[in-house]
Every structure is written in C-alpha cells, then in structure tokens.
C-alpha cells in the first residue's frame, strides 16, 4: 500500500474460521457469551449455529492494518459489525486509502467480506503507513 488515494491492500485474515479459534478468542478476550461457543444455546435462541464475536472479526481484520501501519502506526480504528460470521468462513480484508493528510498520515476504508462476497465488517482507520 502506498500513500495515494485509491491504493489498496488485500489480505485473507481467516482461512476457514474454526470453532477452536472462537474458543481461543473467548479465553483471550474474556468474552464467554454462549452465542460464541455453545451450539445448543445459539440454536435455541434463534440462530442456525454458534457464530463469531464481532470483536473477533474486528481483531482478525486488524491483522491487515498491522501489515500496513506496523504495530504502532495506527491513530484510530473503528468498525461496524454488519453480518454474523460463522465457523468455516474465510474472511478477506480490503483496505483502500481514502485520503492523504497534510501530516503524511492516511485515512483508509476497511471492508471485510466472507467467501460469498458478503460484507461482514465495514470500518475506517487512520495512521501513518509503516513504509513512510
């Protein structure tokens, strides 16, 4: 990615998301809501099966941001969780430079889609690219 409007970075951030990864995320984050690890609970509360934490989707999408901004280049990262993410899903995050600021930082649009092309997360971020 270069600091030019329209420049893009595309990265597969989850390749066949597993239930094990959901459980790992529950432990690491502390969020043990049963929607994300208890299939019986999820199905008896109106869902086809258990599904990923929105914050897991945001977390894996964040890998693409670290790839272009480095570990400490971000000033801001925000996201909306648009659709459930299910075990088995493969997620791809696409970053697009929306603006280049006078201080050299950039604003990027974030789109994470599943293997069907469904937009599951939409967001924005700002910071200084690691290659600056």
């Amino acid at each position, binding site marked *: 990615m270069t600091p030019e409007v329209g420049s893009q970075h595309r990265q597969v*951030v989850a390749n066949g998301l597993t239930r094990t*990864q959901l459980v790992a995320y529950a432990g690491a984050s*502390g969020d*043990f*809501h049963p929607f994300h690890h208890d299939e019986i609970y999820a199905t008896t509360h109106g869902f086809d099966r258990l599904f990923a934490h*929105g914050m897991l989707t945001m977390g*894996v999408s964040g890998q693409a941001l670290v790839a272009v901004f480095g570990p400490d280049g971000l*000033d801001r990262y*925000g996201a909306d969780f648009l659709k459930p993410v299910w075990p088995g899903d493969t997620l791809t995050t696409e970053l697009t430079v929306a603006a280049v600021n006078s201080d050299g930082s950039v604003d990027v649009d974030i789109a994470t889609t599943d293997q069907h092309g469904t937009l599951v997360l939409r967001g924005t971020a700002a910071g200084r690219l690691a290659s600056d």
Partner: protein
Amino acid sequence: MRSFEFPVEAGHIQEFKRAVGDHDATFDPDAVAPPTFMVAADRYDPDYDRRLRSDSPWPPVAPESGSGFHAGMVFEYHRHPKAGEVLTATVTEGEEWFKQGRRGGQLRFREIVTTFADTDGRPCVTARWINVRAANEVRE
C-alpha cells in the same frame, strides 16, 4: 463511572495474537498490544457480565431480555501500550442516539466509553463500545 486496573501482560498479548489469527505468535516481553487488545481488559473488570460467576446463573442475561447486541467498536490510540505496563481503565456512559431500523422499528444505539491511562495518568487508548437494541425493548 467506575475504574479498574489492567495489567498488560506479555503472555496475554501472545494468547490474544494467536486468537486473532497470528497463530505462531511467540512470547515477546516487549510486545506492543495489537489494535483490539484493549477489549481484553474485560478479563480484569470485576463487573464484567460475560464471565463465569459464582454468585449468579450463567448466562446472566438472555438475549430476549433486551440487552441488545454489540454493533460496533472504535479505538482511538494516543499511544500504543506495551507489555509490562499497568493501565487504569475508566468506564463511562457515552452518547446515545436513535435510528430507524430496516424492518421499520426504531433502534437505540448507546456507547460505553473506556479510557485507558498509564501510571502517569496520561491517556493511551480510548475505546467506544456501541450497543444496539430495539427502542421498544428499553426498560430503564
């Protein structure tokens, strides 16, 4: 408003990185916290309601009770915390707004704002948790 301490531990960062897809993350005593790591402060929040508790049934809040869903999140980084720091998390109520839902009903959005400050009291990260629920489910 309430506050609690969040020790940023290298092993916890390694565990979190592996969970968000960096499966081969190794232990780094000087690791920088990954972008969404501050959400893991919930492990240290005594009032966090998505953990096992000895004094109440689990889960404590069923979805039909109208607690809503996590709709989005925003992090603002004043600087990026590293392993070894102890941050103070201060939780406050943020903004509230209403929006028409696609199925016709009105939705209520509500922010919970957590500010993470270092031992000198300087802010490191501000996190905004955005919750949404049907406005007609709101029972104060």
